[in-house]
């Protein structure tokens, strides 16, 4: 199966190894953002996607999550 963010082979959570690492970083750093700005997961993703300091792969994952239903799932969980 292909990765959801690129055409590499998927490893876990339907992401390839590099995008999986970027996804894990995204989830981990959400805590800091929530504490700092009291923002929702969706707002967070949008901030991350627009931030020029975000890494290329993290941006690709954020972009994927924004345009997919999973956004809601993560927020709810």
């Amino acid at each position, binding site marked *: 199966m292909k990765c959801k963010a690129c055409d590499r082979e998927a490893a876990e959570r339907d992401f390839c190894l*590099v995008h999986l*690492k*970027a996804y894990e*970083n*995204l989830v*981990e*750093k959400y805590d*800091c*953002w929530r*504490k*700092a*700005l*009291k923002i929702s997961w969706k707002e967070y993703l949008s901030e*991350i996607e627009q*931030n020029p*300091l*975000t*890494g*290329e*792969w*993290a941006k690709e994952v954020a972009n994927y999550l924004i345009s997919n239903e999973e956004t809601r799932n993560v927020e709810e969980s």
Partner: protein
Amino acid sequence: MGKYTLIITEKPDAASRIASALDAEGKPEKNVEKGVPYYVAKRSEDIVVVPALGHLYTVTSKKRGEGGYPVFDFRWVPRYLAERGAARIRTWLKVISKLAENADTFMNACDYDVEGSIIGYSILKYACGNKENTAQRMKYSTLTKEELEKSYTEPLSSLDFALIEAGLTRHEVDWLYGINLSRALTTAAKNYSGKYATLSTGRVQGPTLKLLETREKSIKCFVPTPYWNIKAKIKIGRRVLEAEYEKNPVEIKAEAEAIIDSCKGKDGKAEKIELKKFQQMPPLPFDLGSLQSEAYRLFKCTPMRTSSIAQRLYLDALISYPRTSSQKLPPAIGYHAILKQLGRTREYAKLTSELLAKPELKPNEGKNIDLAHPAIYPTGNLPERALYSTERNIWGLVVRRFMAVFGEPAILQSIKVTISINGNRFQLNGRQTLEEGWLRFYKPYVKSEDTVLPPTKEGQKISVKKVVLEDRFTKSPSRYNPSSLLRRMEKEEIGTKATRAGIIQTLNNRKYIREERIVVTDLGFEVLDVLKKYCPTVVSIELTRKLEESMNEIQQGNETRENVLQDTVEILKPVTEQLKEKEQIIGARLSQALMKSRLEERTIGACPICQNGKLVILRSKKTGKRFIGCTNYFEGKCRTSFPLPQKGSVKPVGYVCKSCGWPTVRIWMKGKRPWNLCFNPECPSKEERSEKR
């Protein structure tokens, strides 16, 4: 001429200098036979000095023309038998052999390091008819007349066989790694796609690429987090200064805003003033790594370039042997004499006389010792030819660093003023140089960081103009540049001081990395992924370091060449088997990455006409002519195309035209300066140019 002493040097320049130093009148006779220069120096005895051209012998597989892998049997052969384009080595060796026939004494005068020892050893063994056991060794660190005379009259009685053994092992181990792994990758890609492309990796290349890949991944996966810095703009006397909030950075915006609110409209008070005197010790003498780092910091000179310039300056007898890891300057080099000689130039006259007036000259040295050579120092000779600007820069840097290490410590004072604004503490920091010490000698290369604060007393009321909140985000780890990568390799103990810069260059040549702030390419990622997946041992930093240690052990006499080679073969056997077994999958992955990399190389930028295609450099199948076309052409969506010059080479360089914003290409033509070409036929710059005409 009767019997004579035959001296072998590493390079022609060194031969000329050694012959001049040893000839009684300083004018040796230069002869050239079949393009090979050699010198006859006369003193109480006759001396013939003949140069090598670096390595004249190399490792190759035992069976000639064997192209597959694995290959574990090797032999040492003249380079012309193993490498294309090395034909003149055959003549070179013939001339050396002929000169050896009438010699009764042999000396190796190649650079006193591993490579120099191997170069001399292999020539003495193979070209001079097994003279390696009777030959003597000249040991020197500078090519000055005095030192060369001394090293000739007091040579080492034999070659350094332990060093040679370690060096030969390094070459053989590196060859085994390089040939097997590179062939496995290249063959896999070629068998899959039918196209040949050199893909290489090696004992040091792989782990170095891994270091870069780890950094690249953390940059590409980086998620920034917000924080806030609070600063107070305060006025003391007539000066407006910026004081930092004591608890910066603040990680919660609401907290930061609350502090700003509580400071609003309030004046400050200087609560505490702390003064601290401290010393800044002189820098350490240069070893190759620190010279490369400093040259990159100051002149943006890559480590590879610094290394070759330093070698040039060494051959001109301006500086000592550069490929050293020593941080020591022993008194035997003659501090006084060097400084006196340097003082002949107006630029250094005042500084050197200051140092010479000191009762004792004692350099500030580091811990690292290199048994073969001291740290890099100027010989005291002044340039005999006009130096190029980069050569002048590097020489000047070595001279100033040499002077600085003898300087006194600089005495500095830091001032910290704590200002309270409604209970919130801010800090104002200043720094002042009280005594310059060594900084005076190294001045063009150290920036003064002095910030003198206006006089302030404890309890003084401070006027606060504004308290501001700065939005900030954490930044990803910075990219390696050639200098920081070299330092990291040094720290990880992978490669040697002589090979590290070359390894970085090879990674560039193979297109695994690009740009000065190093970016790992998709091809680099793919090659490393393949190696990590199918043979993780060969990219292990630990393993490479262990091998380096084994080779040092050989030099100390605690390990044998046979053992290390056997260990290497045992590591490589299962690796090559695995690579062979997975050749098809590996070939597919590498071929795709190569295709992508080739396309990227030809991609100029977004198509300005259809907006979603990419402009690439293509070649017409019908006419063979090159042109620029849109990738959407193949899908019938965009027919954009532009002509290109048919001569010279064309490459995209990532610049856009200043006049029209279209992407440009760079053209290189023989005999002309390269230029950037805007291929937009309606570019305003073209109209301007035709109007001018």
